[in-house]
């Protein structure tokens, strides 16, 4: 169980090593992971049902828990790569510092974040 002193120590260590940028990268990784999983768990009435294909291989054999866990880890690693592209894009647009210095969310940054999300699609084309 995490104590208040653990929480203090853990946060300080994280900030020292990865800083605000590290938080942003981790959050965007987790968000992309949730988004990808949301769509991978959608359903269809035919043999193209993603939620079925996620759990059963091309021979119709169910994947084991270990195989599914390994696959999810690989999906998360891919999301981390895309999150790096988004954070780098925000850095080149000089938007990252606004997250730190502005006392309230600056709505002018929102279109820059939208552009950063679109940039991963362009990257994949």
């Amino acid at each position, binding site marked *: *169980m*995490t*104590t*208040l002193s*653990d*929480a*203090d*120590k*853990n*946060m*300080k*260590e*994280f*900030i020292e*090593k990865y*800083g*605000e940028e*590290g*938080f*942003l990268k*981790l*959050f*965007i990784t*987790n*968000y*992309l992971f*949730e*988004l*990808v999983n*949301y*769509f*991978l*768990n*959608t*359903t269809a009435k035919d*043999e*193209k*049902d*993603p939620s079925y*294909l996620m759990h059963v291989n*091309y021979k119709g054999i169910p994947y084991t828990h270990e195989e599914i866990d390994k*696959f999810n880890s690989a*999906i998360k*690693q*891919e999301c*981390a790569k*895309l999150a790096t592209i988004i954070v780098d894009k925000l850095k080149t647009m000089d938007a990252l510092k606004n*997250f*730190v210095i*502005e006392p309230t*969310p600056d709505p002018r*940054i*929102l279109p820059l*974040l*939208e552009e950063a*999300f*679109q940039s*991963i699609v362009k990257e*994949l*084309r």
Partner: protein
Amino acid sequence: MGTSRAANAPTTKKWNKVPSALHSPSRNASTIVDAVVSATIPMVPTSSISTPAFYAAYEGVHFISEVRKHGFDKAVERTAIRVSEKYIAPSIAKGVWDVAASKIDPKFVSSPYGRLAEVAFRRTISSIVSKGIKAMEEE
């Protein structure tokens, strides 16, 4: 009541690559993530995805920066978060999310993407509070 149903899969031509990639004998995470992102992000109004992410990112960075500047205890106090002694990491994560959510148009908070942003945000803060640098290394 109390049951949830998965959403229907997209029916666009671009989406067809996703089931094909999932069904492939050489199933590959990179191909699948690329196919999902390419097929879905252009399809969803960008603001639905980026609005909750923007406010969450802002509040998260702001909280981290408060801890850096004033220390953990003061940051919790200044952000007006109620910390449960029993569930420290989840209560901090919920507290910071509540601050972010209060600034987002409710239509985005309650949208599927708002809920995904909430899950991702709370997981991120919670893992940093409970694991420190291991939160990143476990990625």
